[in-house]
């Protein structure tokens, strides 16, 4: 871990909110992106990101310096997002018998979302949103955060073989949903 970040962590442990703010600034983008890809909504991702950092602050004394700070923070974020998806599913099941809809992200755009240029409802998010949380996390960590198998295993608290298996399953499921015919494939490859 960089010495600068280690310094911020030590100062934040002593109650230095300025140092804590530096940590939040340094990691807000990866945390927000993980939350967005998991929850499918910029507003929810913002809320989840804030909650992640507050939880990080309350758990600072449990952080081991020999561990990667980014993995630790993303671990908190991913576990919180998975819990949030499970709560969303419980709420849906109490109102609707359709379990598939329970894991789909909220598609209601609040007024704040219309002012946010960053949200893009693309096909990729639709494919990712239909994955089970256990398969969604490794896919997001692999493609949007570039984590290795070791790092994904550390974030999720699972074995490396489980990471391989889940990535494989995630790709199988995304491939089932993606409408890739030969014509589309050819045009994508030519654009790329």
């Amino acid at each position, binding site marked *: 871990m960089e010495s600068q970040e280690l310094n911020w962590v030590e100062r934040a442990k*002593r*109650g230095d*909110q300025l140092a*804590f*703010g530096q940590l*939040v*600034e340094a990691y*807000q*983008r990866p945390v*927000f*992106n993980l939350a*967005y890809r998991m929850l499918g909504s*910029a507003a929810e*991702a*913002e809320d989840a*990101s*804030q*909650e992640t*950092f*507050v939880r990080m*602050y*309350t758990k600072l004394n449990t952080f081991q310096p020999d561990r990667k700070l980014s993995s630790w923070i993303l671990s908190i974020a991913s576990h919180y997002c998975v819990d949030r998806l499970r709560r969303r599913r419980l709420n849906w099941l109490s109102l609707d018998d359709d379990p598939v809809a329970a894991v789909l992200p909220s598609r209601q755009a609040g007024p704040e979302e219309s002012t*946010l240029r*960053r*949200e*893009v409802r*693309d*096909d*990729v*998010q639709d494919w990712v949103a239909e994955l089970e949380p256990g398969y969604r996390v490794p*896919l997001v960590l*692999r*493609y*949007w955060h570039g984590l290795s*198998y070791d790092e994904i295993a550390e974030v999720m608290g699972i074995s490396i073989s489980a990471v*391989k298996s889940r*990535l*494989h399953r995630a*790709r*199988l499921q*995304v*491939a089932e949903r*993606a409408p*890739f015919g030969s014509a589309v*494939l050819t045009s*994508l*490859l030519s654009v*790329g």
Partner: protein
Amino acid sequence: MHVEYTELMSLMLDNEASPEQVRTVQAHLKTCPNCTATWRQWQSLDARLKAAPMLAPSPELVSGVLIRLEKRQRRRSMVGWLGGGLLASWGVMTGMIVCLLVVGAWWGRANPLQASVVLSASSHLLSSLLWPVRGMGIALASAGLSLEAGIGGLIVVCGLLLALWVVLAARPSILAQVRVRSH
């Protein structure tokens, strides 16, 4: 589609396949059109996923975190103060009960009838504030235990439960104060 080969394809996309595994897949693709189609689809999906944008959080996220943290810390501090206040009030009440018992036991030896009347009146007064004690006292009296032994046991149990509750409620604020003082 052969699962054992799609597993290797997944490793290849992540650059985690060994050279031998790569050669195994390549040899298989020469003879299996289904797996070849799958591999091409996965390659285009891989490119599509990698091209998906990273999004920027709102400029207010950092300030939002600090505001949320401050609210949470304030809430925990209030719980700590409430727990401390409850502990103090229960301590006073427990002290009063203990004094009544000691005086009653000492005086009751010589004046059992008057002692019973006083204790009964006192218990009625306190029961308006100590509903759990009252209910448990009635139960113990029905079981034939002496009034002094019963009330003494009730006080010990209630005191332990209250102490546990207050410690659990006040723990975050106590830890925060210890942390501040140690630094």
